[in-house]
């Protein structure tokens, strides 16, 4: 029952994130969203995922967004009315996906296809094989260690990309926008108002 409440909260917060125009408020709402989803993961028996989501989603992502907001404008530019084409596309995609869920197995049944493939093998063998009581850690670091190595490569590539993007001094601004020497100061004043 707790998970149904959490899922409804998630829906409300997600709609609020899309609706709100103040990006600082959106960042805070996103931290709430991450924390709610971490609680949901804990309810659904995924303790390790809940810890990671709470630390990384609610903590680190929020800090990243706030760091960007220190440089960019806090308020999103308003757009008039609803975007009907986008709503139509989203509605059609959602209807197709809802239709597809009717083929999915019943939630939580012990004989779901996901539960009868390699899952039982991991549950029975991870302690005899590795001697680690936490099966998630055992599977992550041993049975699927190549996956984890690939993850490290992805993180390394992303870190290189971030470094390459941010290590360049913003000198070209004078060429692109020659008439904006005071824009940085003007923006600071906007944020205070």
């Amino acid at each position, binding site marked *: 029952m707790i998970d149904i409440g959490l899922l409804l909260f998630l829906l409300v917060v997600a709609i609020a994130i899309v609706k709100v125009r103040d990006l600082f408020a959106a960042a805070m709402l996103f931290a709430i969203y991450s924390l709610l989803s971490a609680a949901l993961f804990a309810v659904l028996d995924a303790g390790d995922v809940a810890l990671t989501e709470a630390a990384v989603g609610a903590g680190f992502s929020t800090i990243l967004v706030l760091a960007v907001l220190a440089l960019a*404008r806090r308020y999103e530019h308003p757009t008039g009315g609803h975007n009907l084409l986008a709503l139509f596309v989203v509605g059609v995609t959602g209807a197709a996906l809802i239709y597809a869920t009717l083929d999915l197995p019943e939630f939580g049944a012990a004989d779901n296809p996901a539960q009868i493939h390699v899952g039982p093998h991991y549950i029975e063998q991870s302690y005899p094989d590795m001697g680690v009581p936490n099966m*998630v850690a055992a599977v992550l670091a041993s049975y699927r260690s190549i996956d984890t190595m690939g993850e490290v490569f*992805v993180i390394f590539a992303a870190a290189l990309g971030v470094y390459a993007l941010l290590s360049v001094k913003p000198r070209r601004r004078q060429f692109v926008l020659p008439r904006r020497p005071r824009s940085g100061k003007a923006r600071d004043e906007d944020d205070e108002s």
Partner: protein
Amino acid sequence: MMTFLSFFNYWVVIALMMIGFYCVIARGNMVKKIMGLNLFQTSVFILFISAGKVVGGSTPILRDGVEVYSNPLPHVLILTAIVVGVAITALGLALAVRIQEAYGSIEDDHLGDEDDDAELARMNREGR
């Protein structure tokens, strides 16, 4: 009622996914687009974790007195996905910062628009 409950998780996941999708395609602000992408991503996490749940099961950490454990494999996949997702978020936000530095805006429709700052400042002062 039983059928409704057994599909409720999937339906909420799809609703969250579509909210994130709408945020990505309909909002012009790049930080907002990245937030939409994260909403989408989290909905996929919830789908996977829901697939690994066994009713009456327990967290997959071996201990006495527990017979049924939930499936650890989706948890492992999602742990990897969370960390990769944050790396991608960082890359996207770094791109947004670069665009802000080069064009003075992170709005799709207002890149290089010189009057944008003044106009937005006026709107904020008037209070929306």
